């Protein structure tokens, strides 16, 4: 870790981040003071039981949600104080998302789903190229309903990487897939991380997946309970669960 800290640029810097949901009378503390730095090019896996605040943290990092208190900065840019316009711009040019349920637009083909994002990006790759990266160069004109779950998820990844984002945020990308298909998807993510140097945060329930990470962070009840650097980083192909 010390090696990383010395040599690499800090992409995200979070300090004292809390998130409180007001549910009528009750307050739900989803995050209770998170301090965290994420470095350029690393692949981080977030682990933790259901309800521990993983998605909440990821959403705040991705500018989908704002913290109740504390600070989050991206390359020194304060996200906690950004307005809607600034967050939109931040998401548009810097972040790629992958979701558990793929969330493709059913009325658009694979290629068009990717194009919907590249059209508003600054230095995008061609949608076809992005689909090639995830191994779907041959399914360009299929609609989501004509594709398997794994294929849909890989399109979602293609969509996320096509704009050449600096960070890739993935919330349980393999959650809805069997292990073989899951590995294909993880390979795609690994390849993007390695070849494009995209900083990647990956949420999972699956401790097995943690072995492909540079660093593993455990959340429990809204706090970081453990954090360690993988000395041996395994290829996605070698994983199993």
């Amino acid at each position, binding site marked *: 870790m010390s090696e990383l800290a010395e040599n690499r640029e800090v992409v995200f810097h979070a300090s004292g981040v809390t998130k409180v949901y007001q549910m009528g009378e009750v307050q739900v503390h989803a995050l209770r003071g998170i301090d965290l730095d994420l470095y350029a090019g690393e692949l981080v896996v977030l682990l933790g039981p259901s309800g521990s605040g993983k998605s909440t943290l990821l959403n705040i990092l991705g500018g*989908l949600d704002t913290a109740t208190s504390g600070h989050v900065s991206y390359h020194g840019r304060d996200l906690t104080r950004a307005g809607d*316009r600034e967050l939109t711009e931040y998401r548009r040019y810097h972040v790629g998302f992958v979701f558990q*349920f793929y*969330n493709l*637009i059913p009325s658009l083909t694979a290629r068009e789903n990717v194009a*919907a994002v590249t059209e508003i990006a600054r230095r995008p790759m061609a949608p076809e190229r992005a689909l090639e990266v995830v191994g779907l160069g041959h399914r360009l004109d299929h609609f989501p309903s004509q594709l398997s779950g794994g294929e849909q998820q890989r399109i979602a990844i293609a969509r996320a990487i096509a704009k050449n984002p600096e960070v890739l945020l993935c919330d349980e990308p393999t959650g809805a897939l069997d292990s073989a298909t899951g590995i294909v998807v993880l390979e795609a993510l690994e390849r993007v991380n390695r070849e494009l140097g995209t900083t990647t945060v990956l949420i999972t329930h699956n401790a097995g997946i943690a072995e492909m990470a540079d660093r593993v962070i455990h959340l429990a009840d809204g706090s970081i309970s453990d954090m360690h650097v993988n000395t041996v980083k395994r290829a996605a192909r070698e994983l199993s669960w």
Partner: protein
Amino acid sequence: MRALDKKVLRELWQMRGQALAIIAVIVSGVTTMVMFLSTYDSLIQTRENYYAENRFAEVFASLKRAPEHLLARIQLIPGVERAESRVVAAVNLDIEGFNEPVIGKLISLPDAGDARLNQLHLRRGRFIEPYRDDEVMLSEAFANAHRLQPGDHLSVIIKGKRKTLTIVGIVLSPEYVYQIAPGAFFPDFKRYGVMWMGRNGLASAYDMDGAFNDISLTLGSGAAVGTILDQLDDLLKPYGGYGAYAREDQFSHRFLSEEVRQLRTMATVFPLIFIGVAAFLLNVVLNRLINTQREQIAILKAFGYSNAAIGLHFVKLVLLIVLLGITIGVALGGYWGRELSLIYMEFYRFPYLHYLLRPSVVVVAATVTVLAAISGTLLAVRQAARLSPAEGMRPNSPVVYRASLIERLGLQRFFSQPTRMIVRHIQRRPFKSLLSVIGIALAGGIMMVGNFQEDAIRYMVEVQFSISKRDDLSVRFTDPTSRRALHELQAIPGVQHVEVFRTLPVRLRFEHRTYRTALEGVQPEGELMRVLDTRLQPVALPPQGVVLTDHLAKILGVLPGDMLTIEVLEESQPVLQVPVVGLSKQYLGVWGYMRIDALNRVMGEGEVISGAYLAVDPQARGEIYAQLKEMPRVAGIVVRKSAIQSFYDTMAETVLFFSFIANLLGATIAVGVVYNTARIALSERGRELASLRVLGFTHGEIAYILLGELVLLTLVAIPLGFLVGEGLCAFLASQFKTDLYRVPLVLESQTYANAAAVVLFSACASGAVIWHRLGRIDLVSALKTRE
């Protein structure tokens, strides 16, 4: 094309059924608006051109008889531009092969040169040759009704003397765009004709040599009409002037203006309903669409699409639907507008049509529609634009259902589970359900308006001709005559009963308000002519005083008990003070009524009559007509029954056209609302219904849950539709209330039944489509995705 725009197009295609239903409603609105407004503009424009080209006069007056040199003095009234004197004669006609009485109006033309005012438009044949006294020109409507052609002969009885004339031309006149016999209530081209002949010939036949009995004027710009009318009245008074009037009060012009005004009302009311319904439908559909697309919206935002871009995306979808509707609507409206204008042109005998579809009409129609659509969907779009991405990513919170009224009243054991599902679902969205009900009700209401016209006219005719005027025929004398003429009429074989009447042209005055009409003296306890009270019951006229049509009393602002000033426009033109003693109801025209003996007494004239109502033996009609025609003093004979029949004949086509259109439009709305409501229910509850199918429910059982709701809404909507229809008809009736006619609010049960039937039929048709879709519901895919 950008990916998001492809999404718009594909989604539009996916919901094409719903979009089509909405487009049809928009098309109806834009079409009616463009059709009515362009017809309105065209009629106004055509009329203006026609009037200007043919020098339609601005002031009119008729009188008993004045020497021709009076014309020079009239010409000197300041503000008068041109003046033209004429001889106008009421005549009886003999048409070969047509046995019924025909009356006509013969109008003089200058013997040499063109008429200065009210020039004729020649359709066929030629103008009268100078100084010919045996040539005549006929109005086209009359000529066509009898298939008369230039070269045919016509036998005219002027003051009891027969004269044979040769028809040389068929013409149109700006004065008789709307042609109706004096005292009649609707046009009857077979039994009333307007004709023109040379001045000399007519004057010598009508004892008007060197004299005139009719005058028309045009005025210089900026002339004060009021003072000119007064000055003209003063000049004509010694010569038996019947009172001058301006163009606004010229009968044909008045009627046309009334029609044009009605077009304007229609151009507002109908499109507003359609466009309102369309806005509601768009709102419902878009709300649903945005609800199902919460996650998609969130994703797009997560990837950096701005709020504005998302909002615009949905606005585009709405605009696409609306623009399609507007385009088709403008095209159809333009086409139907021309057709409708042509119908009007034929009906009103304009020589030509200047069809005018102003760009401003299109702009107004488009703007109104777009604004309504946008405002109808604004909230939904805003909701989409504002949706926070983290929020949208989460599934919609489960729909909250509550125990319904049925459970709270403890009635559940009387209702099946599916029935309770129906009630709960309606209760969960009471406002939306209410809007659907209102939409369907509007559909019913519009159809009722379509049939209202016919119901009202039938009723007006029934009141006027079965309850009030019940004569077989009426005879009018050229001049007031002694009551002894009664015995002559009674002596004709076949005449069963005769009642006399006295009519006087009058100007009624109360405070500063005046109104020109006629006063009719009727026989007390008459059987053939009965004055009706405001509850349409025949009343005995009081021995003194005048009874006014209620609408006339309103115009004059008088109440029973007030003293009315009556300026008689005949004989010595006395000014009388007579108390108003009652009000009477009638739907056509406005009149004053007195007992004939009371009228004779206040006029100080002895037993004088103007004409008589006759009840006759139907077998003897032919001979009676023949005998009457030859009586020297008879100016005109009107046969009641044939007049009514010909009126229904001319009306039948228009009425059919209107009720067809109204039913079509109403059905469009009904289908639009029911189909969209059902489709949305299907999309909201597809998973639920698919799950029930998985659990073993049958196609029929799940259809019951979905369609039962629609049936319930439709059944609630139908009676509400009756109320809406009554309201709309009442509104239109109040808009169309004039001194020419008042439209009674009468709706036959058939009209209600028709509206209900079309609504039910439209609902069933939509239901059938949904039934079919439910049969193909995909159980597997419905359960696969998460919602």
